[in-house]
């Protein structure tokens, strides 16, 4: 084997850096979707590698459901500050107030409601491109996604009419009002993400490591018990998402494998203290990462339907 050789992580890295620089060069107003989760943590390092010593030439954008893990929010805000980036946060609650979105009767999860909030943010800031951390190995509909994924002026994805993507020549052209979603981690697997986090010594929020937490059993998953409702002047945002009297509640040593918000994230019992422990656990896992995501369990085409409507 020649000494001029990239291993798989170096290959995935150079591919992602190339994609990020194409975004910076081709779009006028790009944004980077940063949630504080493990995939977007990798995106930030890739942005540093693509653009340093210059500033990262785009703001970070995050859409909050209002049900976030507080640890994640703290981490997100701190990282954005450390990198000197502008962080834009838009929330489902604000969208309710503005009438952009409306609560779905009987539905506690606000996962779907992130769609109108994201689309409104894109319109508000005239973003022509949003970089996201989605990976093709996550889910079947995502397996069909392009690096540069075109969205029409309604934010819709049309999987049957995707632009062919050939060599490394990405067609980044959009008309006013249309936009592009770009996924530099398209070819990464869950394992690649953790190996990269290890290699780059990246900090991750502590909820990825085992900790003690009260959880309750629902829909075949252990969901975290939401924080207590303290402000009596407002309705309980977690109403309907609290354990019922006959639900099994237990204190367990657990962690998250993938993060949505507290309503959609199943906790897994685990004793992992280091990144190496997580890598060992992921390689021994017998279910996929998104097997712990309640939002994907709605139907076999749950992700496809949300993506067509403009989801991340």
């Amino acid at each position, binding site marked *: 084997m020649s000494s001029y050789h990239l291993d*798989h992580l170096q290959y995935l890295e150079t*591919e992602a850096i190339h994609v990020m620089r194409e975004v910076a060069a081709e779009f006028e107003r790009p944004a980077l979707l940063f949630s504080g989760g493990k995939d977007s943590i990798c995106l930030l390092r890739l942005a540093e590698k693509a653009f340093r010593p210059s500033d990262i030439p785009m703001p970070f954008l995050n859409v909050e459901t209002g049900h976030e893990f507080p640890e994640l929010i703290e981490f997100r805000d701190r990282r954005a500050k450390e990198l000197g980036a502008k962080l834009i946060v838009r929330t489902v609650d604000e969208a309710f107030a503005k009438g952009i979105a409306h609560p779905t009767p009987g539905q506690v999860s606000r996962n779907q409601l992130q769609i109108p909030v994201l689309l409104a943010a894109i319109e508000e800031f005239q973003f022509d491109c949003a970089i996201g951390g989605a990976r093709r190995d996550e889910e079947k509909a995502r397996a069909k996604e392009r690096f540069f994924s075109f969205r029409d002026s309604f934010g819709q994805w049309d999987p049957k009419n995707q632009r062919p993507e050939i060599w490394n020549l990405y067609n980044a052209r959009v008309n006013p009002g249309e936009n592009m979603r770009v996924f530099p981690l398209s070819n990464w697997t869950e394992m690649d993400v953790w190996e990269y986090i290890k290699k780059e010594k990246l900090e991750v929020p502590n909820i990825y490591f085992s900790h003690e937490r009260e959880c309750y059993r629902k829909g075949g998953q252990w969901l975290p018990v939401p924080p207590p409702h303290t402000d009596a002047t407002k309705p309980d945002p977690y109403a309907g998402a609290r354990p019922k009297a006959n639900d099994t509640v237990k204190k367990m040593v657990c962690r998250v494998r993938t993060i949505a918000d507290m309503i959609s994230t199943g906790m897994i019992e685990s004793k992992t203290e280091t990144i190496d422990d997580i890598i060992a656990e992921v*390689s021994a896992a017998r*279910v996929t990462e998104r097997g712990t995501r309640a939002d994907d369990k709605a139907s076999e085409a749950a992700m496809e339907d949300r993506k067509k409507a403009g989801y991340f």
Partner: protein
Amino acid sequence: MPHTQHPIELLRFNTCGSVDDGKSTLIGRLLYDSKSLMEDQVEALEKSADITGGGQINLANLTDGLRAEREQGITIDVAYRYFATPKRKFIVADTPGHVQYTRNMVTGASSANLSIVLVDARQGVIEQTRRHTYIAALLGIPHLVIAVNKMDLVDWKVERFQEIRDEIEDFLPKLGGFHDVKFIPMSALNGDNVVDTSKHTPWYEGPCLLHHLENVHIASDWNFGTFRFPVQWVNRPNNPTDHSLHDFRGLSGQIASGIVRKGQQVVVLPAGIKTTVKDIWTYDGSLAEAFCPQSATLCLEHDIDISRGDMIVGLENLPGRASDFSARVCWMNQRPLQTGKKYFLKHTTQTVQAVVTAVENKINFDTLETMDAPGTLAMNDIGGIKIRTAKPLVFDGYQSNRLTGSFILIEQGTNLTVGAGMLAPPLEAVKPEYSDFAI
């Protein structure tokens, strides 16, 4: 999935063939038998088996992820799958066989090291077989596997396998290009010769598919010959508070081919100015040398006006520079190619306007002969064209450099990607004046 040892090499391959040749089933089989499937995926498969598979697990449902695909039992778009064995990591592009989706095959195959063309042993070689093999050769994919599938349905007859092999070997010389070609008799549905060697083929002495994928030599697939660096993004921190950054001017990009060393002389094209590489800057520190396909930021000795779309190259084996080209193009849109109409052409890191001045010929996939002056190219046609750009391009022939010899055509207005083009070698190399940089 054992991960005790880190797989060090990444192999990208695509599968193609006609409808119902069993492409998706083959990938499903590779994932299933190499234990790369998770319990919830198997569970989802079993759930959908009742609807589409008549109670039997349908391995194709693993890759056919969209609703319409499951309903119609076809693959609409390129599906990407990932799996690993202790030896290698794999990126699989499952590309559709329907003729109207040939453009997706080009998409899936353009970045592959290896193509698997499936042939239904009962049907033998058909137009799609020739088309896909031709496209693989045209795209410069180094390694080819002909998977003769459904051998169980022809009673594992060696004569049938040999017949198909002979027919393909008959037209392969017309295509040229492949480093190696492997014929494997198999049954993807039953798993024969996919991950495990079949007991039905005592007459076959070659490897099973996975063994071949794990061992085919790919280290020399990259082009280390001549240095090409299309400038992607000009890196100017413009930081007034930090003096060390104030004068920093870097040229960021991904090395398309070759190797660059600190202190090396280079030529900046199209300006034709010779200068020296002062530094190879990366986030992880300066490098003494960098090679393709690494991403890097080059700092040059002289402050030359350079922007995105320019190319930095080594002094040896200079590329061509022209605004009239011959190329082969695969047409990808319902609206046929129109000569005289303006398209955008994206080549390396720049986009220019272009006009197709003539369609010289088109491939007939039944005979693999070219027919002259077809007038136009329709969706899924491949043919030779003459094209003129509004601005000269610095380029190489596709056969010697996949990244500096390729382009896409974009329809103006709709912004659809309508064509994938491969440039013929330059008639002559660019002749820079070679005056050293002087103010």
